[in-house]
């Protein structure tokens, strides 16, 4: 005891000395005082010297307040601490006296008054917390800073979605919980700084919920996952409100129901720290339900046995790709660069095809020109690839889409993603999102049967949807395949007849019947479901792909499933085509539509009703399109059997385009037709050919439409 007293006395004397030296505004000095007071408090409590402990604690609180700038009169505070130290010293000379001495009473009274003053009354003092500004900030850079925040927050929200769905399969994975927590935490932080009060408040509330999960005071249930996804949706809305035209209007968003739900969720959970049995098959269901009887939250259902069937896509996103160093480039600059490279290709081609060159018999010159061509090609490929981004992000968004769809419709399906590293032109990425969502909807709503029905048919209860991407030649192929019930062709025929889309059942092949679903106004949904809308889906999807200069094909097997195959060109700037001649004009037909080219025989041509010409090819009749008639060009060959027929296929139909000559295969740079000519059906652009002349690029869809409309 005596040792303790002397030790204590030593420390208190040190403290008294320090107090004399420290300036009240010296933060570091205050920190030192604080440490000293904590030490003294600690020792006295350990030695059971309660009154000294209490005095030290009181002084400590004053110093803390000083540090936090919560003292109105810091000089007074210091005086008080000085008095407190004196009292402690008095106690130490008389340790056996438990009651506070008289002088102590005034000390405590003053302490009381001081304690009461916690927040500086006058706002003339620079407060630590910035005075509440109206929502939003006035920094000159705020516009840019908002857009930074918007893009970063959006990335965070996407990461949250992925991680939270991973949590469904592995609810105790701390990595995921932490990632989600950190994401909300960062959003809270920056929104707070930018004084986006509502976003800040809301993300703070969700963050606290996740904090409890992190500390194992709350276990991740289905209900919580659903709630967090709803919270993500709300945040997305609030953030896009910032983007939108006009002033952001946070009053539109009511976060009350959400914060109430959070409180509810926090109360419902028993504070049970879950033992980490990660790796083992998560059979958590019984454990959680053995808690309070009145709990009715859905606990994590036992995941399907092949729990590693969860596609790689939705596993945790590693924070920042370890290998990639990336740069941010203004898209305008990128587009300019690519335009110029396009011009370079054309210019180089003009030079190379100049007839003067073929006259010059100079080996070295030829080699050099070839080299030039090679380098230009490489340059073009490289610049194209600058615009390419992997489909991964868009594909991964489908994971959540499918999950939500399954929830709403009561069906079960797993989404398997493959080829997410396949790259497409960035301008197509956004355009892809809606059609893909549409097709997911169709797959879940019309394709995959209910679990009972699947069982009846001997299929697994959980359906499977495959989403694949790969490159094929100059195109990217995207496939969506489900193992559902496939297309109901009888229903389709019936509907098509009702809508007057076909007359009679004139020998339509299965393939052609399937393609009927792409017709406008077609829908076989008996009732409009909330999920699938009004069945305006498939023709819109088809149009979307056509707009991207691609196409959609469908292959279905009744009872077994349906597969959509979509093609999009690698780039919208170049088309792989075949150059053809009609009269004096040159045209480019995109290769993707070409099946074959043939020279017909006279007896194979049949004239129908004196206006339509048809060619017998193997077992089918191929309608002939006279391009020269369509475009008003004088051809050199007037009869099909003297000319060439290019068999083209589009939307399940085939037609033969009549041309004079084939020039050859070409990769051409697409130039837009310009406003005046843009609406012309049958043409989708133009290019500069090797001889400097303009070649028009044919729009096969358009040609099919106008060919026999006349």
């Amino acid at each position, binding site marked *: 005891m005596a040792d303790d007293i002397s030790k204590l006395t030593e420390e208190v004397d040190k403290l008294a000395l320090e107090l004399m030296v420290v300036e009240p*505004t*010296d*933060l*570091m000095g*205050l*920190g*030192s005082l*604080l*440490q000293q007071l904590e030490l003294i408090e600690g020792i006295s409590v350990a030695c059971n010297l309660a009154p000294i402990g209490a005095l030290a604690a009181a002084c400590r609180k004053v110093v*803390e307040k000083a*540090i*936090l700038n919560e003292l109105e009169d810091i000089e007074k505070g210091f005086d008080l601490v000085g008095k407190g130290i004196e009292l402690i010293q008095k106690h130490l000379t008389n340790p056996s006296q438990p009651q506070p001495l008289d002088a102590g009473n005034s000390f405590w009274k003053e302490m009381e008054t001081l304690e009461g003053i916690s927040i500086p009354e006058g706002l003339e003092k*620079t407060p*630590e*917390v*910035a005075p509440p500004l109206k929502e939003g900030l006035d*920094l000159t*850079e705020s516009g840019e*800073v908002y857009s*930074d*925040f918007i893009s*970063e927050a959006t990335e965070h929200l996407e990461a949250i979605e992925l991680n939270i769905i991973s949590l469904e399969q592995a609810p105790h994975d701390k990595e995921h919980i932490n990632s989600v927590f*950190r994401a909300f*935490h*960062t959003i809270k*932080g*920056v929104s*707070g*700084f*930018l*004084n986006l009060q509502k976003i800040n408040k809301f993300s703070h509330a969700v963050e606290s919920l996740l904090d409890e999960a992190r500390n194992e005071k709350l276990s991740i249930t289905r209900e919580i996952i659903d709630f967090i996804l709803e919270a993500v949706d709300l945040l997305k809305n609030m953030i896009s409100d910032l983007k939108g035209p006009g002033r952001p209007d946070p009053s539109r968003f009511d976060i009350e129901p959400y914060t109430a739900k959070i409180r509810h969720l926090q109360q419902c959970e028993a504070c049970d720290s879950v033992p980490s049995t990660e790796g083992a098959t998560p059979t958590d269901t019984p454990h959680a339900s053995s808690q309070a009887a009145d709990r009715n939250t859905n606990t994590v259902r036992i995941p399907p046995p092949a729990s590693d069937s969860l596609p790689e896509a939705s596993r945790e996103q590693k*924070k920042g790709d370890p290998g990639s160093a990336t740069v941010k480039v203004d898209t305008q600059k990128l587009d300019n660069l690519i335009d110029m490279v396009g011009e370079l290709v054309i210019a180089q081609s003009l030079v190379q095809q100049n007839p003067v060159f073929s006259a010059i018999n100079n080996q070295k010159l030829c080699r050099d020109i070839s080299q030039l061509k090679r380098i230009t090609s490489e340059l073009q490929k490289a610049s194209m690839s600058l615009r390419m981004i992997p489909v991964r992000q868009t594909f991964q968004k489908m994971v959540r889409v499918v999950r939500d769809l399954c929830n709403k419709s009561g069906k079960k399906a797993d989404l398997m993603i493959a080829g997410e590293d396949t790259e497409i032109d960035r301008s197509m990425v956004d355009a892809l999102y809606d059609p893909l969502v549409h097709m997911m909807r169709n797959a879940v709503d019309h394709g995959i049967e209910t679990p009972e029905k699947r069982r009846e048919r001997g299929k697994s209860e959980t359906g499977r949807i495959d989403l694949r991407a790969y490159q094929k030649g100059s195109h990217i192929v995207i496939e969506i395949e489900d193992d559902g019930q496939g297309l109901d062709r009888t229903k389709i025929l019936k509907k098509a007849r009702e809508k007057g889309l076909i007359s009679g059942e004139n020998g339509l092949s299965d393939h052609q019947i399937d393609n009927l679903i792409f017709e406008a106004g077609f829908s076989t949904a008996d009732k409009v479901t909330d999920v699938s809308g009004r069945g305006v889906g498939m023709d819109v999807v088809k149009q979307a792909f056509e707009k991207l200069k691609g196409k959609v094909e469908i292959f279905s097997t009744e009872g077994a499933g349906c597969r959509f195959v979509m093609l999009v060109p690698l780039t919208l700037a170049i088309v792989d085509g075949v150059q053809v001649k009609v009269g004096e004009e040159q045209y480019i037909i995109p290769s993707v539509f070409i099946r074959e080219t043939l020279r017909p025989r006279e007896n194979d041509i049949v004239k129908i009703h004196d206006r339509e010409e048809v060619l017998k090819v193997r077992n089918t009749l191929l309608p002939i399109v006279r391009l020269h008639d369509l475009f008003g060009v004088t051809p050199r060959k007037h009869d099909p059997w003297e000319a060439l027929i290019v068999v083209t296929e589009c939307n399940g139909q085939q037609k033969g385009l009549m041309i004079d000559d084939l020039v050859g295969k070409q990769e051409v740079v697409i130039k837009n037709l310009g406003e005046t000519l843009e609406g012309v059906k049958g043409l989708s652009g133009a290019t500069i050919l090797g001889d400097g002349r303009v070649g028009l690029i044919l729009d096969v869809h358009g040609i099919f439409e106008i060919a026999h409309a006349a």
Partner: protein
Amino acid sequence: MADPNMKILVVDDFQTMRRIVRGVLKELGFTNVVEADNGVAALEVLRTEKIDFIVSDWNMPEMTGIDLLKTVRASEEWKDLPFLMVTAEGKSAQVLEAVKNRVNNYVVKPFTPATLEEKIKKIFESK
């Protein structure tokens, strides 16, 4: 007084925040700014460049601001390096811990340029 040419290290894992602080520092005349996105990266910078002042956030992956502060104060080289800690609103425990670990000053988010300027001035006035 604070030398406008002094090299300031801004540490925060959120790029937008670093940008904001950089912007504010620029307004105050400090253009010599280096960035790091967590405590470990910050130490790397300290090792390779001559830093005169650190502004650091608290919550970061790999190494938090408080751990960075402790490491800096424990090292022979940097124990007197001026250090400003950025803390979140309402986290008085953080402030107290930072002060106990000999931070020069702290600033609470959200802060105005004026507040930051005051804090920086205060730190360099005593030097």
